[in-house]
């Protein structure tokens, strides 16, 4: 047998094959499928058109109402109702809304519903996030979700793998967000088109789960099909107490074939900022010049983890945000919300002048809860800075890590956290 990568191994097992190679078309068994209030209503319609009588497994489909919820308008409320009715009709175990809901890609790992070695699909492009726990996980459209909900299977082409090796010691205030922004800046927004991105190296081993989720989350911004980390002690410490099912650990064979290998010395990477209007337009935060901002958003499936809120609070403690700047903090799940409150982070955010939102994807995609007017500029810890992404077509979005975002809210312009706080 030829050696295989972790991605190839997971796909092979789920297609009932001993050996697969890049380019092979496989009928793949799905362990878990996800939809949200924007994408799933179309999937429900397609499901009905297929004439399906039940979902393939009522414990293996999640509907999470997180994008335009709590419902922002009548049309959104109707979309939510379609999903609520569907969940009732087909007795779905995992239907999340209101006080149970959270930003899907933070919520599902937290609940132990997406696990190492699994194949997970979701009708949301950031479904690639779960590669952080060592799953093959990828975004699809609504029609694919309908097919997966019906049959429990989906076709996939085995991707080539791009191996990304990170070594060296991380600089202060640098997290997974900076590593992935730097990487996207290096390879471009289609640098990993149709490919798996496998993250490895000694620097990766030192990253907490929050940073790994952030990195896997943004592989789609390089065109990647999936991003993946080999599970280690850090992964298992996160997964074990949460897992709702048994799972298997896969690792790449030492001799596995990679399409491309790239190495990064992380000691040369400082906090990064992606400038408008494409995530690959990345610069060192010290080199962006004087960019004044109107709004800062801290949250989203990319950077709403407890670690992210903690580092933002560390920067903001005892400080006020600049006049005429809005700071919106969005804890992404009820568990993180409660914990942040218990730890006193809310007190720090509120004293600084922030508004704290309930869990929602809202502003990240220009849905609601912080839309920009023409000519306004936001710095966000989210994942996309496309033209008009957060509101008016003549507004601008910059992307950064939470520490840079918090410091910039205080200064009213994009800055390095060291301008606001001496030491991490």
């Amino acid at each position, binding site marked *: 047998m030829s050696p295989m990568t972790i991605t190839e191994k997971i796909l092979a097992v789920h297609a009932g094959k001993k050996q697969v190679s890049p380019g092979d078309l496989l009928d793949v068994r799905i362990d878990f499928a996800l939809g949200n209030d*924007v994408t799933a209503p179309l999937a429900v319609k*397609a499901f009905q058109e297929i004439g399906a009588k039940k979902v393939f497994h009522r414990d293996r489909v999640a509907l999470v109402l997180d994008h335009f919820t709590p419902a922002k308008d009548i049309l959104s409320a109707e979309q939510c109702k379609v999903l609520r009715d569907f969940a009732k009709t087909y007795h779905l175990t995992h239907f999340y809304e209101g006080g149970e809901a959270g930003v899907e890609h933070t919520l599902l790992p937290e609940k132990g519903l997406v696990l190492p070695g699994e194949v997970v699909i979701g009708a949301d492009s950031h479904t690639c996030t779960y590669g952080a726990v060592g799953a093959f996980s990828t975004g699809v*459209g609504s029609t*694919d979700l309908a097919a997966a909900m019906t049959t429990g299977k989906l076709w996939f082409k085995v991707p080539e793998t791009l191996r990304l090796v990170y070594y060296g010691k991380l600089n202060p205030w640098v997290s997974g967000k900076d590593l992935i922004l730097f990487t996207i800046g290096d390879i471009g927004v289609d640098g990993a088109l149709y490919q798996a991105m496998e993250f490895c190296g000694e620097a990766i081993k030192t990253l907490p789960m929050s940073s790994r989720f952030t990195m896997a989350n943004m592989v789609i911004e390089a065109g990647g099909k999936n991003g993946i980390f080999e599970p280690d002690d850090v992964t298992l410490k996160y997964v074990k107490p949460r897992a709702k099912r048994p799972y298997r650990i896969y690792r790449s064979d030492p001799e596995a074939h990679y399409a491309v290998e790239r190495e990064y010395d992380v000691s040369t990477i400082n906090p990064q900022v992606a400038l408008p209007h494409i995530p690959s337009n990345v610069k060192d935060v010290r080199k962006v010049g004087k960019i004044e901002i109107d709004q800062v958003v801290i949250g989203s499936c990319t950077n709403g983890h407890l670690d992210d809120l903690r580092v933002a609070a560390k920067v903001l403690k005892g400080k006020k945000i600049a006049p005429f700047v809005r700071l919106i903090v969005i804890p992404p799940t009820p568990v993180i919300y409660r914990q942040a409150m218990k730890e006193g982070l809310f007190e720090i955010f509120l004293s600084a002048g922030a508004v704290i939102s309930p869990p929602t994807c809202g502003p990240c995609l220009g849905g609601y809860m912080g839309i920009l007017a023409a000519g306004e500029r936001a710095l966000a810890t989210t994942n996309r800075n496309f033209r008009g992404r957060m509101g008016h077509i003549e507004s601008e979005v910059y992307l950064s890590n939470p520490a840079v975002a918090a410091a910039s809210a205080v200064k009213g312009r994009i800055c390095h956290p060291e301008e606001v706080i001496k030491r991490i």
Partner: protein
Amino acid sequence: MNTEGKIWKFGSDIDTDAIIPARYLSQSDPKELAKHAMEDERPDFIKGVKEGDILVAGKNFGCGSSREHAPIALKAAGVSCIIAKSFARIFYRNGLNLGLPLLESSEASEVIQDGDQVRVNLDTGEITNLTQDKKFSAKPIPAFMQELIADGGLIPHLQKKRVKKK
């Protein structure tokens, strides 16, 4: 199967927010979505597009979100085929799943100009620029995908399979 129409030309990295902004995603009616297709990117598109027209774009067309509303909006606006240097993978799956043919050809993407009249043979991938009197060949669509497109997309394809089973 052939399709013929006027070309609407776009650049590289056209994202799904440009194809259909999120402010219109509170519903998923194809006709409503079509009214706003490419609205911010190219406001004259929706005013002028006719049934059968063809899109030509650079690399990485449809990058970003997985919203199927994007190919739905283009298809409902009348677009019969998209030719690009490359497609973002989720958009590629979504387009074909909806029965919207997507062809990859770097040469066609570069040479074909806005407003040209173009004919596409979807079976062979042959692209004929009637205005410039030039021919290009695209990478053929995989056989099982052609079957999907011929059935009108993944859903009609699955319906057909279910009927056969019975």
